[in-house]
């Protein structure tokens, strides 16, 4: 029992500590988005037709190295600035799932299996497009922020940046802590031999790995190294683990909920989970 408590403490502390610097970076960037970049620029770049905006935003995300804790606050501010929700979300999902650092890490983890890197890229890109397209088609909108701050508009530019960053940080930091606590609890509670017991059929394996990705809530930069260690699982399930994780996990769901409201978060979560599994299965069948 005391072992479990020790392990929980270490995992929890590690996940919080790992996330905080990236969250800080995210709220600074999102504050800059909110305050420094004039509205017209965003309108001009992204507020065009959604058919163009979703793939364009996904491409933008793919070249900008951002991790989950960084991009969700940015997407929140982008939406606030009038960028279509579907496009802002495509950017937020693509950046952690597709950026070059993640692909390099995947290549390093799967040395000698370049097809895994290609499969990850293609399947993740497909997932982002699926989620973006559905969000656009369904016309999903985030809940209006209860606290559209009057004081955001007051004072000097640096003061407004600080106020916006402070607002975003206090609204997400607690959720990062909660996400870490839940993920650590599930990690400790999972029986050791769960993987061996479930590693049987492809369907069960893919679903297991998808659920594991959600509960483990790893950063996209490091998940490939964990994925590669699941040697008893078929490659297609390992791929599913890496495609689902950056799109939807416990910590992300909490952040989606606080940034966009429960309904939008549930939609993104469901679309992301199902979309990622379908994309990983199809791409995995073809490429692996």
């Amino acid at each position, binding site marked *: 029992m005391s072992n479990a408590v020790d392990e929980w403490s270490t995992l929890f502390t590690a996940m919080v500590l790992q996330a905080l*610097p990236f969250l800080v970076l995210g709220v600074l960037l999102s504050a800059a988005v909110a305050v420094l970049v004039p509205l017209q620029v965003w309108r001009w770049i992204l507020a065009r037709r959604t058919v163009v905006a979703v793939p364009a935003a996904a491409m933008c995300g793919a070249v900008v190295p951002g991790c989950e804790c960084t991009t969700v606050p940015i997407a929140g501010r982008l939406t606030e600035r009038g960028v279509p929700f579907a496009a802002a979300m495509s950017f937020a999902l693509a950046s952690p799932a597709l950026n070059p650092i993640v692909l390099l890490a995947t290549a390093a983890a799967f040395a000698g299996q370049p097809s895994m890197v290609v499969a990850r890229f293609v399947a993740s890109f497909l997932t982002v497009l699926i989620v973006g397209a559905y969000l656009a088609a369904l016309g999903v909108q985030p809940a209006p922020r209860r606290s559209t701050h009057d004081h955001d508009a007051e004072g000097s530019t640096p003061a407004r940046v600080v106020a916006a960053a402070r607002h975003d940080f206090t609204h997400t930091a607690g959720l990062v802590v909660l996400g870490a606590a839940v993920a650590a609890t599930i990690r400790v509670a999972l029986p050791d031999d769960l993987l061996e017991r479930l590693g049987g059929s492809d369907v069960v394996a893919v679903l297991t790995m998808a659920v594991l990705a959600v509960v483990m809530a790893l950063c996209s930069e490091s998940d490939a190294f964990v994925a590669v260690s699941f040697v008893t699982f078929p490659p297609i399930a390992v791929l599913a683990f890496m495609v689902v994780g950056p799109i939807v996990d416990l910590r992300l769901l909490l952040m989606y909920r606080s940034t966009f409201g429960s309904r939008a978060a549930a939609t993104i979560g469901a679309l992301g989970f199902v979309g990622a599994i379908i994309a990983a299965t199809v791409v995995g069948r073809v490429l692996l």
Partner: protein
Amino acid sequence: MLVLLGGAMIVVAATGDSLQYVREAMTLPLILAGAVVVMLGLAGLRGGGGHRHTPRSFALVGIAIAFLLVVRPGPLSVAAGVTYDPAVQSRVQQFFEIPREAVVGENASAADIEANALELHAGQLWYASQQLPDSFAGVAVRMLGQFDPNDGDPQLVRFRITCCAADALRLVTPLSGELDGLAEGDWIEVFGQWDGDTTTPGLDLASWHVVETPDHPYLTIRDA
């Protein structure tokens, strides 16, 4: 609270405590991010008044502060439920050169082995057992890790992290030899020679010492 959180991040990074949770490359980002959080906190205090509504969830940050400054959990231990196939070792295999003095011969004395040992980790041991089986016999090896009694098949455990302890891979090296008086999780430095196994290479022990928990408890991606 923001000031406390930022302060805790700086303290944990500056004292090296953070190495028990995240990789060393995070030290500077932690200090910088901590400074930003302190600044955000101070700006809030100075601004004062107004309608400053922090959400209820922000109170959870207090728990994180308590863990960083008061609970200060230790690094992952062998009892951690992170279970992986021994084949994980093949993922961290790494090339290395065998210096001439480490080749002490298969009948070398314990003192000889200790004096000339080459420090390796489980990934390097795996590499050598696969790629250099002929030249690797008779090489004196030193390894560092935690003792795991493992129900009578004792082994040395070391974790390799990518970003943080949550993504740790468990690397194991079977140990053969007398290992009395050790408790699960004790940090030990072991000296010996490769046992000839190529699937899960282990060490035939010549000697071992209990050591303090090292400053860098985890191997990182740069090591392995």
